[in-house]
């Protein structure tokens, strides 16, 4: 049986861990609420943005001979190179949050490798970057500190490089992979094909909301400018969604850790009591047998 003092020390250490995990859970709960609020407010913008793009793209697609000839809307038949942007957390201790994203990225890479397509990996977040570096998979670009503190300007700067490369024809596809927030206890993995934009979703419903329509400026130029903003916004939204998911994952992981620690303290206490009882019994037996032998 283990030494009484050893068990006592173990109990103390486990309950200290429990304190830490509980505190981390509380911090994540508070941060989650804020992140969730931001994501919710931002979703309104995305709805309208999609609406505007769908309307303009739909109009061009249906009214112009040959459809849309903007590169951002055309499915490229033999892609040579694709960009994969992944978003992971900067910190760990959040269960399987990061590894899920990493796995999805790895799967995507293998799929493209099989088709002989080159992949450029662009990473956001320390954990994912560390993983790929450790496994000696080359990263084209990396950013730290953006996933824990989403910032529209930095996100724009980061993704603009990919958008420009796409428009120049250097790359033929752009993916954003991240773990998004679904609800308090679940995260949802997103593998979003951002470019080229899927035109299937735009249909030609001629729902003229107004009888009179002002002929706008060059619609294709407008679409070109809109699509950049659309991708930039998608990147930003991935970041804020990922932060919310990270906190919910951490909250959950820390909750489980706290519970585990509680269980452990309980079983250690039982062990401690048993050991103490055993020590008392041994001592008693020694005394009694000592007295017996004196008789």
């Amino acid at each position, binding site marked *: 049986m283990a030494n009484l003092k050893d068990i006592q020390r173990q109990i103390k250490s486990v309950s200290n861990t429990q304190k830490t995990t509980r505190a981390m859970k509380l911090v994540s709960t508070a941060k989650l609420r804020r992140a969730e609020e931001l994501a919710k407010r*931002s979703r*309104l*913008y995305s709805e309208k943005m999609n609406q505007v793009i769908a*309307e303009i793209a739909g109009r061009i697609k249906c009214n112009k001979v040959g459809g849309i000839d903007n590169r951002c809307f055309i499915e490229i038949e033999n892609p040579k190179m694709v960009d994969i942007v992944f978003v992971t957390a900067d910190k760990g201790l959040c269960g399987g949050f990061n590894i899920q994203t990493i796995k999805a990225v790895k799967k995507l890479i293998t799929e493209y490798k099989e088709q002989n397509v080159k992949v450029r990996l662009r990473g956001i977040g320390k954990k994912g970057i560390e993983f790929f570096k450790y496994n000696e998979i080359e990263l084209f670009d990396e950013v730290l500190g953006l996933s824990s503190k989403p910032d529209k300007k930095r996100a724009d700067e980061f993704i603009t490089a990919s958008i420009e490369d796409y428009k120049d024809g250097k790359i033929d596809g752009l993916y954003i992979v991240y773990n998004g927030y679904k609800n308090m206890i679940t995260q949802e993995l997103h593998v979003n094909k951002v470019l080229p934009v899927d035109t299937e979703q735009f249909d030609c419903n001629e729902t003229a909301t*107004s009888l009179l329509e002002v002929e706008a400026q060059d619609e294709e130029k407008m679409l070109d400018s809109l699509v950049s903003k659309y991708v930039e916004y998608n990147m930003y939204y991935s970041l804020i969604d990922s932060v919310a998911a990270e906190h919910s994952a951490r909250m959950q992981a820390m909750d489980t850790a706290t519970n585990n620690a509680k269980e452990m303290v309980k079983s250690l206490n039982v062990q401690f009591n048993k050991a103490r009882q055993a020590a008392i019994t041994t001592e008693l037996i020694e005394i009694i047998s000592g007295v017996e032998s004196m008789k």
Partner: protein
Amino acid sequence: MDKLKLEILTPNGMIYDGDAVSVTLPGEEGEFGVLAHHASLTTLLEAGVIDIEKEDKSVESVLINWGVVQVDEKKVIVLVEGAVAIRGDNESDVAKALDEAKELINDIADSNPAIASVSARIESAAQKLI
């Protein structure tokens, strides 16, 4: 006078949602005003100031750096990337908004030659509030 419904949305949330008598927008091909029952129109906006005239004749200014507007007969929806509303109940609030606005202007300054006039306009808008 008839009112129109105006929504100004940024990636970080809505900054204006309410009725207005008229809105002046910095369109890419020039500034234009929108009253209620305007014909449908979708167009891009460039960096500039949106002036919102409210029912009580007061004017609120919102600085934007890029945007797209969707106008139909009942509603005006403006999607912007970065925006600062020049408003506040007291002097310090207005000053704070003005500082934010200037920061936004500095970010876009090199890409737009007409930025000096924008800067002057938001200052005068802030002056009126104080």
